[in-house]
């Protein structure tokens, strides 16, 4: 052991901040340097979580406490690992590296017409309305009356809600300015959310479903096929399914609101093709029925009954996917970095010395913010065991040398104070307009604000 333990964490989303917290707490001498390719910490808490759910962004304030409470913690934003610094560079300065880079890629449907204008990944749409700098220049045509969201998870409901809430409801939030303007001009009156299987199989959570009832939306439910679907069991998952089916029954029984914007939850339908001459015009779908999948599960089977839905915008929300990280092994089928309990393993399942993974990049893109806490704690426990067992490589560059290297390679890096300047700038900008914040979406402007030049 060569104390004190020095760890680099790559990625400042939930997995990164839970890992940092846990390390600093469990090894009171340890030092943590946290890197992110963006100048702003938080990962999907900033760029995924919906603007109308901004209370959840408060978990980013964890950094505040870390940075305030500990001189052993440092944040380095605007540094992409694999580009400005390599894995080898990090291991010269630290005993270990924890990768918590999330799952920034998207899954495709694999159907004809998927690349027509008007067909997009929900990942891009979400990043756009949340002001992620990589997506700020994109545009989405909201001039049609109906949009279709393919997928049955919370992201699908987030996207559908955002399309329907309207300018007045979104104005006070931290939705990106460019998106707020687009939503103000949107002509979308109806969003159809399409699920392959039945209501009992959907991955929406109960709070998201319950919330739909609070927005003066005309919520319609089609082909829920909930009859006979009541799950056995009394655990939290079974309870959630029972509650969801009940909520859907309530929506189905509600009187229609003919003047309100409409949200249609249509189950048991799979997309076959996106059709249009120069852009999306219709979505061809096939009706499914549920059959036993053999392992006690129910799977969708086509009935052959085909229909079309007219729409000008199709967003696929069928999952995120991890992207390979330079210098690390990658399991392309699962979109994760192969690991055992967080220890990155290469060929022959042998651990790579000093290399760890946490969060979505470790487990795949599922689970809520808090799910990453236990996940990161497991990784940290492995790392501390390896440190105690002298199984970590010994860094040959000391702390001063590390800071020199950073200054040399990453002149535009944004430290914690730099981020606080961005944060303050965004909040002040919002105050003038009665908005929560006005996000900066241009990297150059962000670094300028962070360094006090603007």
């Amino acid at each position: 052991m060569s104390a004190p333990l020095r760890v680099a964490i790559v990625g400042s989303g939930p997995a990164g901040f839970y890992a940092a917290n846990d390390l600093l707490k469990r090894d009171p001498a340890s030092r943590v340097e946290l890197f992110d390719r963006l100048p702003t910490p938080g990962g999907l808490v900033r760029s995924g979580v919906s603007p109308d759910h901004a209370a959840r962004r408060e978990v980013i304030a964890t950094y505040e406490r870390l940075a305030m409470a500990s001189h052993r913690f440092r944040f380095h934003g605007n540094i992409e690992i694999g580009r400005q610094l390599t894995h080898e560079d990090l291991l010269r300065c630290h005993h270990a590296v924890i990768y918590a880079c999330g799952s920034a890629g998207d899954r495709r449907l694999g159907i004809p017409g998927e690349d027509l204008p008007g067909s997009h990944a929900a990942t891009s749409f979400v990043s756009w309305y949340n002001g992620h700098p990589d997506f700020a220049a994109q545009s989405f045509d909201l001039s049609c009356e109906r949009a279709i969201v393919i997928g049955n998870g919370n992201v699908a409901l987030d996207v559908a809600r955002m399309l329907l809430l309207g300018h007045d409801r979104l104005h006070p939030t931290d939705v990106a300015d460019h998106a707020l303007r687009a939503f103000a001009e949107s002509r979308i009156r109806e969003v159809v959310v399409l699920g392959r299987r039945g209501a009992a199989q959907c991955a929406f959570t109960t709070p998201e479903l319950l919330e739909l009832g609070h927005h003066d939306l005309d919520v319609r439910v089609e082909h829920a096929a909930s009859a006979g679907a009541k799950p056995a069991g009394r655990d939290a998952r079974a309870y959630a399914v029972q509650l969801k089916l009940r909520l859907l029954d309530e929506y189905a029984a509600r009187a229609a609101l003919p003047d309100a914007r409409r949200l249609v939850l249509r189950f048991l339908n799979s997309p076959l093709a996106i059709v249009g001459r120069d852009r999306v015009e219709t979505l061809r779908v096939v009706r499914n029925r549920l059959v036993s999948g053999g392992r006690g599960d129910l799977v969708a089977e086509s009935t052959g009954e085909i229909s079309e839905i007219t729409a000008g915008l199709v967003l696929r929300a069928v999952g995120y996917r991890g992207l390979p990280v330079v210098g690390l092994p990658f399991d392309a089928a699962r979109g994760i970095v192969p690991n055992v309990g967080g220890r990155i393993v290469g060929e022959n399942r042998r651990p790579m010395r000093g290399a760890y993974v946490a969060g979505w990049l470790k487990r795949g893109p599922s689970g809520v913010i808090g799910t990453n806490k236990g996940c990161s704690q497991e990784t940290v426990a492995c790392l501390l065991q390896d440190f105690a067992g002298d199984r970590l490589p010994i860094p040959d560059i000391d702390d001063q040398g590390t800071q020199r290297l950073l200054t040399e390679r990453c002149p535009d890096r944004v430290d914690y104070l730099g981020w606080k300047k961005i944060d303050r700038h965004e909040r002040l900008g919002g105050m003038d307009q009665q908005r929560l914040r006005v996000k900066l979406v241009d990297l150059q402007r962000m670094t300028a604000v962070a360094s006090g030049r603007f």
Partner: protein
Amino acid sequence: MSYVITGTCVNDGACVDVCPVDCIHPTPAEPGFLGADMLYIDPDVCVSCNACAEACPVGAVMDEKSLPPELLRYRDINAEFSRLRKDS
């Protein structure tokens, strides 16, 4: 009188760590935790000490008395899950 967890919950279990009467479930150590949409407070056991509300990073826990109308349903949801859990 009891405290109630609402839909903002992000399942980080911070409330579980501070509750003096262990009335919040499923805990991260319980098997149902990963499949839970949120955590729930058992109103029969809660002593309304406010510790969970202070610990919650996202303001998801509220005193039942201060629930706004659109969140009232969470009172029943917390109670219903807690009953179901105890019956099993």
